[in-house]
């Protein structure tokens, strides 16, 4: 008993150094050497300033931008406070929230059913993607706001539509941040300053 108590203490110390410090530090070193961009969060830099991460969603609300999904992370797309709404399927709060978003989405496309990912919060609250159906729903609004044709917007959307990984895994999707940056590059508009 007493011997095993001493072993417990020594074992905790020794293995904490090995598994709790050496292991993660070695992995960090190797990761920084092999995949520095990925290991640091794939930050997007514009004019010397970090403007986001490629794989962390941001909120967009202007008519000229494609909008990300609703977010329950902090006050919305708070990347230091990830999370979902946790609202249950029969919670009136969920139904009311969806109803509001459906109403505002249908203002531009009356009587068209709204793609479900457009009115639901994601799990992380930082979902960088929307579905192709969601993008299609927003095409005409974006085209109008940028005074270009729907086909021109469609071309940019198609360019940013990712299929399933290896043709099999996951679901087809569009990275909203990259899409909007590309739109700004190709069809710049001077958006009204808020």
């Amino acid at each position: 008993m007493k011997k095993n108590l001493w072993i417990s203490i020594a074992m905790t110390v020794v293995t904490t150094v090995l598994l709790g410090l050496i292991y993660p530090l070695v992995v960090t070193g190797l990761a920084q050497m092999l995949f520095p961009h990925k290991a640091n969060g794939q930050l997007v830099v514009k004019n010397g300033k970090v403007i986001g991460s490629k794989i962390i969603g941001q909120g967009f609300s202007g008519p000229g931008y494609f909008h990300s999904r609703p977010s329950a992370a902090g006050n919305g797309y708070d990347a230091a406070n990830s999370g979902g709404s946790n609202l249950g399927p029969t919670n009136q709060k969920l139904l009311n929230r969806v109803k509001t978003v459906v109403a505002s989405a249908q203002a531009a496309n009356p009587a068209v059913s709204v793609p479900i990912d457009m009115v639901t919060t994601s799990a992380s609250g930082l979902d960088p993607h929307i579905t192709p159906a969601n993008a299609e729903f927003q095409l005409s609004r974006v085209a109008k706001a940028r005074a270009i044709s729907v086909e021109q917007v469609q071309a940019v959307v198609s360019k940013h539509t990712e299929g399933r990984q290896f043709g099999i895994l996951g679901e087809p999707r569009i990275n909203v941040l990259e899409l909007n940056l590309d739109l700004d590059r190709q069809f710049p508009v001077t958006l009204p300053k808020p």
Partner: protein
Amino acid sequence: MTANGWFQILLFFGLVLLVTKPLGKFITRVFSRERTLLDPVLRPLERLIYRLSWVDENHEMGWKEYCISMLLFSAISMLVLYGLERLQGFLPLNPQKFGAVNSPALAFNTAASFTTNTNWQNYAGETTMSYVTQMAGLAYHNFMSAAVGIVLAIAFIRGIARRQMKTIGNFWVDLVRCNLWVLLPVCMVGALVLVSQGVVQNLKPYDTAKLIEPIQVPRVGTDGKPILDAQGKQAMDTVTEQVIAQGPVASQEIIKEFGTNGGGFFNANSSHPFENPTPLSNMLELVAIFSLGSALTYTLGQMTGSQRHGWAVWAAMAILFFSGVAVAYWAEARGNTLLAGTDQKGSLTQPGGNMEGKEVRFGIANSALWATVTTDTSCGAINSWHDSFTPIGGLVPLANVMLSEVVFGGVGSGMYGMLVYIVIAVFIAGLMVGRTPEYLGKKIEAYDVKMAMLVVLVFPLVILVFSAISAAFNFGTSSILNPGPHGLSEILYSFTSQAGNNGSAFAGLTTNTPWYNIAGAMTMLIGRFLMIIPVLAIAGNLAEKKYVPPSLGTFPVTTPLFTVLLIGVILIIGALTFFPGLSLGPILEHLLMMAGKAF
């Protein structure tokens, strides 16, 4: 449901099957102390650890010494984790300058949670824990609690395999070998593969990004309630920056899945793009969760000299897995009938279904698959929020945990949980033919069955008692987020998950309260250690018994009939215990939802 969705599920299961035999064989070699390819590197390291911690590697232990060593180690390492949480403000690797984990009840709950392989989290990682607490405290326990589970399963298997012996191995040697040979090599490689997909691994402070378009967000007070402006309208704030949390995530992510721990580095767990960025990382993490549990069935067959028995057990697990995933996938793909004006139909351009609390890159199939896998095992990591599942979709993870997570199960704990059910199954088979039951040449007698029943009874007892108290008093019900039957599901899920050492949640329930912190910690400790002690007692008792050669009256444990009997026992025990609770929660909610009722 789509053909592609099912194809992904089958592909996942094919990969699990592929690793089962090689990994199972390797585990047998490691614990039989046979030579492996890794010996030239790991043997010197192993000897060094024994020298530094006074371990005599040739010493063999009886079940009581094995058990006491395990309890002492768990207690000491749990204290260290508590200390780390409370002292992190004074320690290095804390770029966000987080203070001590507050309150002490939360720190205690978290220490119990990670020591017991539960990883129930009443905190959000990125706003609470420093990098050193994550690495040396939480990820360390991800290794250790997984290893403890595995070595206990190995000790139980030795108990079956050994004849007339008083010992079942050396806890320290098993623990060290498990970490060095099984967990560490896979994690080193796996972590780097995850980084290649975009899981972050760094020690830098959080980044601040200047948003492309400033966003308007509703202003809320510190109590989470909205603040109104002078006109009585919701006050808005303009946000121009996004703070992006960072950290040494990949090294923790891989052991969190491989060791079926489940505690997320970030609050959003494996739905966070920095923990699980691509469908490939998702698939690898899923396979990591199942692989050890599946491999241990092969080890069971090999170490007891009956490979077909190993596969018969595996088959029972496979059938239960597919039943679960089919129901969950169906329910989630069907969607939420109460959401008018939305298009939830699956098509080429969207997965459709119930997307609340789910990520676009995973869609419905991978979210339902993950929810099933994480609760078949004691993992509890999530890539979508179970609280927002449809009632029947949410019933699957809840029921999985209620069946004691024996479908591949927590690493080790699934195996010994299953062995307990096997003891009961052969006992029932023995009763039916009127003979003393035998299991792989060992007579199963009153003592073994009593210990097995203790395990089976403690589990529902702690769940139902604590759930009933929480549902009856204000300190329990005031934490509920979703009203109606769903609220009961939240409470029931919480204690089931903690007793089963799962750690996933119907996370709307506010559990960072004194009651849920303390009652939860007790539930987790009981769910872990009150199970382990009788399990080791059976192991020690079996090891001492003589070998009885099989006769005509022996119930064979290698046949499909045995597989069916085993599934029957698991389902009957689970259903008899929990059906009333399930009817009042998810089943009632489903019926009301079908009737168009909301709360």
